[in-house]
């Protein structure tokens, strides 16, 4: 190669790296470095003034496996995910199908469905706190007028997780609806015409045509819903603080508690690594399993 073409090549490389740099710096500083630092942290003992932190290998992980609260929060999280994800996605598809049709007040309906999403979680939690409050809450008042006994929805270990699931579905379904609505708008109405001419019922059309075409959206929404179900924490601050008796404690809230209430940063780091690994496995699993069955345009 001639010298000036070598120089041009080098310049090209520098140029490329410069273009990459802003994104790379952000990604490394706020994602990669914290991940590695957390991993290292999780391998050390909790330090204090008397006994400084020292390397204990997988000691924190062993302690975690013996920690009943971890297992409680983990179990809760599984139930929370199982309770919110399918229901909110089914609701989202149903609402999207409904508002995708020409009907009066369609714009208003779309907005109404989407409103829970634009509210901050704290505000949502406050609204639902009003619903769930014993005696004076909306739900109990309604129950009372029809002669039923109200109850302390958030104070009862049997109902608290269910109460949180209902609220989360209310909040998430509208958000997922937007994605489904966008996907539906991209599907030519002539496909429906063609199916109708062949005598396909609405259900057949949905099952054989619409749903398969919505699969890319479904994968995207499913991953988001899964991440959300493990990431959601704000409402716990307002509504339950994980109680009663950890009946509504979720993993992320437990991490927060460990780090800032119990001031055990290394144990929090351990929990974080577990959560991270869990989410990574689930997301990869979804991609691998679903990707083969998805038609991308």
């Amino acid at each position: 190669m001639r010298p000036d073409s070598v120089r041009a090549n080098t310049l090209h490389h520098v140029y490329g790296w410069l273009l990459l740099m802003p994104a790379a710096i952000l990604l490394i500083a706020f994602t990669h470095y914290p991940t590695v630092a957390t991993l290292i942290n999780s391998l050390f003992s909790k330090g204090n003034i008397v006994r400084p932190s020292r390397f204990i290998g997988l000691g924190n992980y062993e302690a975690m496996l013996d920690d009943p609260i971890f297992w409680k929060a983990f179990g809760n999280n599984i139930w929370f995910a199982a309770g919110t994800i399918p229901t909110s996605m089914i609701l989202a598809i149903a609402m999207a199908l409904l508002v995708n049709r020409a009907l009066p007040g369609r714009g208003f309906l779309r907005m109404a469905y989407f409103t829970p999403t634009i509210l901050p979680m704290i505000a949502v939690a406050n609204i639902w706190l009003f619903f769930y409050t014993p005696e004076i809450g909306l739900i109990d008042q309604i129950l009372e007028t029809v002669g039923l006994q109200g109850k302390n929805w958030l104070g009862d270990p049997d109902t608290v997780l269910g109460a949180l699931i209902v609220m989360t579905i209310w909040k998430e379904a509208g958000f997922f609806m937007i994605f489904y609505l966008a996907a539906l708008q991209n599907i030519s109405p002539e496909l429906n015409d063609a199916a109708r001419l062949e005598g396909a019922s609405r259900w057949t059309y949905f099952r054989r045509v619409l749903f398969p075409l919505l699969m890319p959206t479904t994968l995207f929404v499913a991953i988001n819903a899964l991440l959300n179900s493990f990431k959601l924490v704000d409402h716990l601050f307002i509504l339950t603080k994980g109680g009663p008796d950890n009946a509504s404690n979720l993993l992320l809230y437990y991490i927060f508690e460990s780090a800032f209430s119990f001031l055990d940063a290394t144990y929090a780091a351990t929990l974080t690594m577990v959560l991270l690994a869990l989410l990574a496995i689930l997301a990869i699993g979804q991609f691998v399993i679903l990707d083969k069955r998805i038609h991308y345009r």
Partner: protein
Amino acid sequence: MSTVEITGLVKQWGDTRAVDGVSFVAAAGSLTALLGPSGCGKSTILRMVSGLEPPTEGHVRIGGRDVTRTEPAGRGVSMVFQSYALFPHLSVEENIVFGLKVRRISATDRARRLAKVADMVGLSDLLDRKPSALSGGQRQRVALARAVIAENDVCLMDEPLSNLDAKLRTEMRTSIRDLQRRLDMTMIYVTHDQTEAMTMADQIVLLNDGKVEQAGTPEQLYDAPSSVFTAAFIGMPPMNLLTLERFSDGVRVRGDREGPALAFSADSGWRLGVRPEHVALAPGSPVIGTVAAKDYLGADTLVTLEVGQERLTARIAGRPAAAIGERVGVQWPEDAEYLFDAHGRAVSRGSRTDGQTPVRTASA
């Protein structure tokens, strides 16, 4: 074999009447082209025939049965859409047999019909491809196969060739017509391309602004246009329409003071129609035109001439010598003249009248 009969069909959206009282009969086993400019309501008529769109008024009868309120699937019609409406996630085979599956036709029956139809449209080697892996022409064939496999008597086509390139379009024209004849289908074919309508149709229904402008065989529409609209729409290039002006000594082409008066009487604002192939360059002719443009097409040349304030096109065989800007004599035979009144309705055609008793040929 099913005749499709449409009477008084109206489609109204709000204040606009997209289709305004359309009636025609598509004879069993014939190809009827619904021709018209975009927005004339032709696709809406097709959708009302298929049942995808309910009519505001009027009736659709297929094979003598009134199907105006029947579900699309109960009408025994197939349809090919402009966008083909193929299911993108299904293979060619699954696309073609979709309707058979919906109707729970047995697997052996499906396979037999699929093999026959795929062979007929030349798709046998592509059955497991997805539509995205096909060319435009192949997708068109899949849509055709899907319409044919249902074995319905009536097939509706909504601008099926408009997404194809010119060469493929000519090819598909022939094969669609072929298929329609072979299967003896009653076909209603929507197009805005008069060439498609002229070459394929047994009957053309020319639509303008939601109404039938004129209906008839291609020859009837070409030879006896009942209005300026038909005259200008049919033919490639279309008929020359020269606005006339009445002078004290007779009628001339507008602005053509020097030329001889035309030997018929008409009012100012009436129009004289002459097909380009009837216009000749004749050195001795008293009508003088200035050559404005020449479009060489190979076998012949389209020469645009200015006569008075009007322009007319002449289709001249080979390469005429006349240069642009040259003044040449122009003539056309008397029996090629058409006369339209100020409202655009045909007054006479074929032979030059003496000015007193115009020969009425307009069927409208």
